[in-house]
């Protein structure tokens, strides 16, 4: 199957878009990398934007591979206390708490 052509109606990804989504995604991108990231994202959206041309009027979105109801279980405590075990792999803990930079002055 041939490489798709870009949908001409779609807006190209801008450097401002890159900085906006990088902030939302909490990934630092320095000014030197931004243009390369932009160009590659733009190519990926060239592929994705083919979807715009498909008529999906009235089509029920498929969220899940099997259209099954998620199972419910009884409202009972089943987990045991694993706090120390789980915190043993954390970068910084003290007295059972995860340490992060101060968020309240």
């Amino acid at each position: 199957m041939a490489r798709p052509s870009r949908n001409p109606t779609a807006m190209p990804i801008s450097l401002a878009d890159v900085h906006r989504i990088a902030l939302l995604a909490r990934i630092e991108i320095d000014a030197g990398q931004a243009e390369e990231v932009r160009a590659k994202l733009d190519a990926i959206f060239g592929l994705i934007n083919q979807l715009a041309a498909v008529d999906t009027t009235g089509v029920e979105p498929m969220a899940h591979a099997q259209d099954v109801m998620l199972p419910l279980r009884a409202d009972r405590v089943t987990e045991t206390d694993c706090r120390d075990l789980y915190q043993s792999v954390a970068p910084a803990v003290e007295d059972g708490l995860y340490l992060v930079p101060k968020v309240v002055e």
Partner: protein
Amino acid sequence: MSAITAPIAELAEALRAKRLSSVELTQGLLDRIARLDPVLNAFITVDRERALSDASAADAAIAAGTAGPLAGIPLAHKDILVTAGMRTTCGSRMLANYTSPYDAHVVRGLKRAGTVLVGKTNLDEFAMGSSSETSHFGPVKNPWDLRCVPGGSSGGSAAAVAARLVPGGTGTDTGGSIRQPAALSGICGLKPTYGICSRYGLVAFASSLDQAGPLAQTAQDLALLLNAMAGHDSRDSTSLDRPTEDYTRTLGEERGAKPLAGLRIGLPREYFGDGTDPDTAKAIDEALAEFRQLGGKTVELALPRVKLSVPVYYVIAPAEASSNLSRFDGVRYGHRAAKYGDLTDMYRKSRAEGFGAEVKRRILVGTYVLSHGYYDAYYLKAQQVRRLIADDFRRAYQSCDVIAGPTAPTTAFRIGAKTDDPVEMYLNDIFTVAANLTGAPALSIPCGFDRSGLPIGLQLQGDYFAEARMLDIAHRFQQATDWHRRIPAMAAP
């Protein structure tokens, strides 16, 4: 002593008959790993001591008559399935020093069946790739040609099985990550129906698509491994509660010269057009002739929307990845930057340092398509087209039992050939992603070689829960052919 490079079924038989001990087998394979893996880079972690201690425990269980069905069989797990006491890196700097406090469900199932854990295999970082080149631990090489990729993302397990370093391994398949490396490395791989293998302990990439499955030399071995991996698990809300199946149940049936009589094999015209390498197309045609010889009938059909599966996938998978990978924030586990200012800066720097370029790209794409004002145009739209693709397959299964075609449009490509062009890399998934979108099972088996001696894979897709039938079809093909017995020259015993 039996050959240690034999398939699992033969090894299990030799172990039960005490013609071979698990310690001998494991030691022999550890020696092969020490000799060949410095070149292949299929493993991220190998634990000799643990492997040999598992092996002696298996020998003791066999002697005592308490052994599980796969007692003493050495295996390797893709390094995205967590293992207590052995680190799980996901091929990422983010988790380079991470050891899980618990085992994944499929890891536990295979442990209970008596297998010996040899180590953890290399992969594309967080399973995001089709070439096993983006690992923080370096690229994996294809045992058939060391200049080429083994496919991905489960390329470490595929290369390890192809080079006979282990008789079987696990993989995960979000868009083809078991089947495509199986094809490019000349082995067998199965992605089961979504919900058959619990995703508990599978580090999440795209939760509505991810599924674990086996890689091995033969379809029979895939069935044996799937028996130990499948089953309901209440810790994964998408795990299906169904009666237990024996996936090997029909493999021993005597059916004469036409074991596939009555089988209807669907050939979608979209899988047989341009874009597929001529050598691949020819090998697939010859395999189809073999299936007809065995009694199968081929039926032409159409999957008009299947060509949209790559763009749909590259909305849904990054969207789900951007959400799943938000857990890597340098707080509870994984990499934390050495220097940072406030909390947001700590997140941004830890994630910038911990993730590689392709993972970041997919998180950014996912963040974009889910961001305010874009959700309907991208994510919702992709889910609607996903439904249209699933409808195409539902219609197809009214006129056929399985669908056949190539697993990948070309054989293994050179290392570095597609790393600068993500879209070119994504198009390698053209034949495999639909099964993830629909959730139906699919497998790949070897069916020939191209002019350069690189292996070619045939993909069989089936309707939901058709695994046993598909494995039977693949097994009958392998009883009549010997493509699955070919071993790369570098790995000759």
